[in-house]
């Protein structure tokens, strides 16, 4: 699928989300009974049963629900690796409360990562190699800005993936995880600036969070990975 959104800035600075769906647009989509979505799908869904060619050296996330679970597994690997490093080398001036709750978040992400790994079994992608060279783990600002970007990204990724999931049991599991990511996001945001838990940089005029496509999310996640992910076989709608 052609990515026609603006190029997001790298997280760690400020992630820019572009997939705000206005109420008017939302209603117009409803009004035509999803024909717009179907039209997109007809030119992008891989209906021929053939795998699209995986670029050499890339890790194929796979197709269907397995692909979406691997996509989630990849993001949870990234988050777990990040918070594991944060807990292992605390930033300068970290408080006892921050240590306790950031360690909680690490454990939640580890639980998510291990859950997906076990659920996927033989279909799981390998352990990913991360690249955190842009993050200064000794500095609170750098760590929290990255944490904020990861958590907001995770929320928007799960919100966007919901409609791509075919099995309602997997949808339920994604729903159980995304609200925990949103709890993290709000906490991290409040650490940076109290009261920014759901500010207008992330919540739109309908009081709604973002949903991002795997293509957009992977582009951002890739900058923190040396392993190359490929989502070309993921469901598009």
């Amino acid at each position, binding site marked *: 699928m052609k990515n026609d959104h603006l190029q997001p800035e790298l997280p760690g600075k400020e992630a820019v989300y572009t997939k705000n769906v206005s*109420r008017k647009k939302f209603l117009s989509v*409803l009004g035509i009974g*999803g024909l717009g979505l179907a039209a997109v799908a007809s030119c992008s869904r891989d209906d021929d049963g053939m795998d699209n060619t995986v670029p050499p050296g890339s890790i194929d996330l796979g197709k269907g629900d397995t692909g979406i679970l691997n996509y989630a597994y990849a993001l949870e690997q990234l988050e777990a690796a990040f918070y594991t490093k944060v807990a292992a080398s605390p930033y300068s001036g970290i408080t006892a409360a921050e240590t306790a709750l950031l360690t909680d978040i690490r454990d*939640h992400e580890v639980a998510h990562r291990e859950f997906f790994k076990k659920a996927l079994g033989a279909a799981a992608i390998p352990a990913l190699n991360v690249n955190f060279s842009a993050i200064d783990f000794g500095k609170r600002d750098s760590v929290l800005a990255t944490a904020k970007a990861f958590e907001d990204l995770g929320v928007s990724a799960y919100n966007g993936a919901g*409609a791509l999931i075919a099995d309602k049991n997997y949808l339920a599991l994604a729903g159980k*995880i995304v609200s925990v990511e949103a709890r993290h996001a709000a906490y991290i945001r409040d650490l940076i600036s109290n009261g920014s838990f759901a500010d207008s940089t992330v919540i739109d005029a309908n*009081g*709604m969070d973002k949903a991002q496509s795997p293509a957009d999310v992977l582009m951002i996640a890739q900058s923190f990975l040396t392993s190359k992910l490929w989502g070309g076989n993921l469901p598009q709608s």
Partner: protein
Amino acid sequence: MNLHQLFNSIEKADPDIYDRLGSRRKAIRNFAGIGGKLALAAVPLALGGLLNKAYGQSAPKDITGVLQYALTLEYLEAEFYTKAVASGIIPAGPATGALTTIRDHENQHVAFLTAVIKQLGATPVTKPTFDFTAGGHFANVFTNYDVLLAVAQTFEDTGVRAYKGQAGVLMSNNTVLTAALNIHSVEARHASHIRQMRRARNNDATIKPWITGKNPGGINDDAVQKSYNGEELTTQAGIDLTGFVSSNAASESFDEPLTYDQVIAIVQPFIK
């Protein structure tokens, strides 16, 4: 409770009540007759069940039904925060700022859901008359800041669980499903912040932005506990998470859904 008097009042307010009930008319008459023999605690629940059926408010099975259900919950939250912000007991500064932000989101959710329900050709449910004291149970909800925050936290955590419980019904419409998910995560952000406010105010490190076990976070109240029961799971899809992390972290890392019936039981005391 005088059930005959209650039924007389209902008949006055809604002369068609027995027509609505149809075949349930006999049941409700019988129910009235044996009411005195029922355990008192069971009466409001059983009565609520009958009235729900009478007004067609059984668990939603389609898109519009879920949206009407969501709208009812958003009405509850929107009016609660409107009254909370106007109560005069919220400290100026960050606390008022946060509750105002949340109030605005809940009003936006009401407006959004109302518009979508109309777009789908249905008539949005009317706003119920709320009693935020829950029949006197939280008598000081708008005069005691701690009680106010406790009720706010319960509403937010319940809201998160309520939306989660309906995702499966929305799968047939990707646009609505995504919108509901986008609201769902905002409710979780609210819950996280209210919990942080309570953590700071109570200086209680066991109150976290996430739900540990089925612990309501220092709110010792049977009515509130219903919003947390079932959150204590540490196994997901047959996978025991305590093999990887502590049981506290295992329960915190996944939020659990609530069924329609569970949510109605939680919010019914707040509806007059």
